[in-house]
């Protein structure tokens, strides 16, 4: 089996840990627990003809005072940037994360997730998605609306990333 290192980065409290928990354990909790350092999970991602063992690194969310520790990005085969669709600044910071990824792991495919879509009306969420697509659509492999709470978009994100990592 092929193993791949996948990292999740983004601002603090954007729902990275919840996103992984939904994907790996199919669970969700409203309680916010800040990740310290890094938390690693593992899940096999089944594609059409093969299975990828994903070692998913949930990296402590960045803040203005304490940016993301870029050491953990080294060697990652794929990357998921998570932003909170209800917090504009987390979307604005995507550019910084893309710069960091470009510096450290330029060949890694990147998926952008606008998490917490369940907190907005469909039409509003789609409008924001369109704006983000216009801004970053050419830079990343794909952009998804997601919800760790409802599970919407979670499987698709990891599936698309696994597919991108092998092609």
């Amino acid at each position, binding site marked *: 089996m*092929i193993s791949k290192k996948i990292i999740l980065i983004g601002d603090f409290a954007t729902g990275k840990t919840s996103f992984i928990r939904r994907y790996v354990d199919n669970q969700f909790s409203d309680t916010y627990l800040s990740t310290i350092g890094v938390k690693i999970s593992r899940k096999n991602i089944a594609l059409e003809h093969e299975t990828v*063992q994903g070692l998913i690194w949930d990296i402590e969310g960045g803040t203005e005072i304490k940016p993301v520790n870029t*050491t953990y990005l080294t060697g990652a085969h794929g990357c998921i940037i998570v932003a909170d669709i209800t917090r504009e600044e987390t979307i604005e910071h995507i550019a910084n994360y893309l710069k960091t990824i470009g510096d450290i792991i330029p060949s890694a495919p990147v998926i952008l997730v606008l998490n917490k879509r369940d907190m907005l009306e469909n039409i509003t969420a789609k409008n924001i998605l369109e704006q983000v697509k216009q801004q970053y659509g050419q830079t990343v492999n794909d952009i998804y609306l997601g919800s760790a709470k409802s599970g919407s978009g979670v499987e698709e994100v990891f599936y698309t990333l696994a597919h991108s990592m092998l092609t």
Partner: protein
Amino acid sequence: MPELSDSLQKVIAPAISKEIANNQDVMIDALYPIMGGMISKYVTQSIKELMEQINRKIENGLSTERFKRKLKAKFTGVSETELLMEESSDAVISALFVIHKDTGLLISSASMAKREIDDPQMVASMASAIKDFINDWINKHQENKEEIQILSYGNATLYIESAGSVYVIAFLDSEPDYELRSEINRFFASIVKQYALYFQNFDGDDSAPEVSEISQKMQDYLLLQTDFDRSSTSVQKHNPAKLIFLALGVLLLGYGGYIANEWYKIRILETQIKQKTAQEITLNAHDNTIELNGYVDTLKHIPEVIDLIGEKTGKPVINHLILSTKGQEYLFAKQQKNIQDDEQKLTLLQKQFSETTKPVLESIAELQKKIVLLEAKETEIHHILHIKDEIASKLFTAMKNNPFYNRQEQALDFAKLHLFSVQQVDYNPKEINAVKKTFEHYLSVLLPYRAYLKKIIIEGHSDSSGTAANNMVLTQKRADVVKTYLLKQPFVQKAHIENLLESVGSASKEIILVNDQEDHNASRRIMIRFELDPDMVYETMQKVFNIQQKDDIINRNGSKEKL
């Protein structure tokens, strides 16, 4: 470097052997700034090994083990020192991991039987993350770029050795001594040398033949270590792993007892809830919460159940109960009836409200009509009361540039014309045209107010010469001739103001003074002024009030009819 270490040990050891047992850190701190990190490292190692030897000597000095070792040395011919060295190498490697440095992915692993590590891939990743974190921290805080080599927790030790694109982790039950570390490094170097290219190009695929080859080599290495342990003369000490397992067993037993007790409490609570509510509710205890599961016919007991659980366990409740179909149907029917009742009440209230508000709204409409009427009357009254001001204002606007207009008296004063000669009645024909034109203009402003005009007075004036009686006659005649002249003018005839025009002789009552001297020419003149009809104003006002009184009467009658 070993020579330096030996030399230093020879010089330093005798002098500090009495001190180092209790002040090892002080010694390192004192030596480090002077000798630098590298030397300090070896000195530290030497001191540590010296410490270990001294400790063993102290431990075994009077023990039976010492006598056994002496006897063994006599029989086997192996020196007591060599036997002592063998005893010092008692750290056991339980597993070896080869990990890709960049990705943290496990390339290959091997472990001793019964000491296998669960989920080695996860362990490799976590170890990699920890190593990255510590290395990052060290490199931020130190000038020398060094890497972590030992991670130790209790009796579990991880020895890490990096090379190129991979690093090896040896899992041991105690900290390895220098010899064991060197041995691991030699083995690891042979692996790296053989598979360097594979390591460099590692892409996460563990199905490559190299992976199983490396795993086999490491397995063989671990087996050799076990054989050496069996054949060695090492003293059998208490096995730390056994102690750990024993301690873990005790802990697990205690934990099991606790869990069983909690489980029993929850089952009792479930029974109590069932007795109270007649509902099958399952309780799942978590660390900080109690979760309610199952199907219920009604939700009315939920607060009671939550109170009971809170009272018995002190934990908050997470409600995952599902209302059964029967219960949902009942609730639905109940809510539907409630909605119907509410609708009926609402309709009734709406009806009552419209009945109550109808007369009020009608009254408001009537009042609004009255207000409009009153406002119109107020405007009319204001207009009547201020009609003279209004005429004066319009005259001023129309005639402010006319030299014959007297603003103060709102009259025409022809003093500036030489209209009459001394004691003459007839006017100067050259000047009368100015009177005609000015009067036409004056009349055009007055005509819209004709209904309020009582008369338009043509006043004849004389100078002060002559008697008063003569002047009275003279001025009357002057006024008459001007009146006759004006009555002949088409604009006067068209206006039908014959009955309004009145000629009056004023004699010399209003002579013109210039610097206290009479201007005789100016005094002989005509003035024209208007006079409002007070009766007309009064009549109009009364008319307005009469209408109002009439309206009031109508309203009162209307109200009576409605009542």
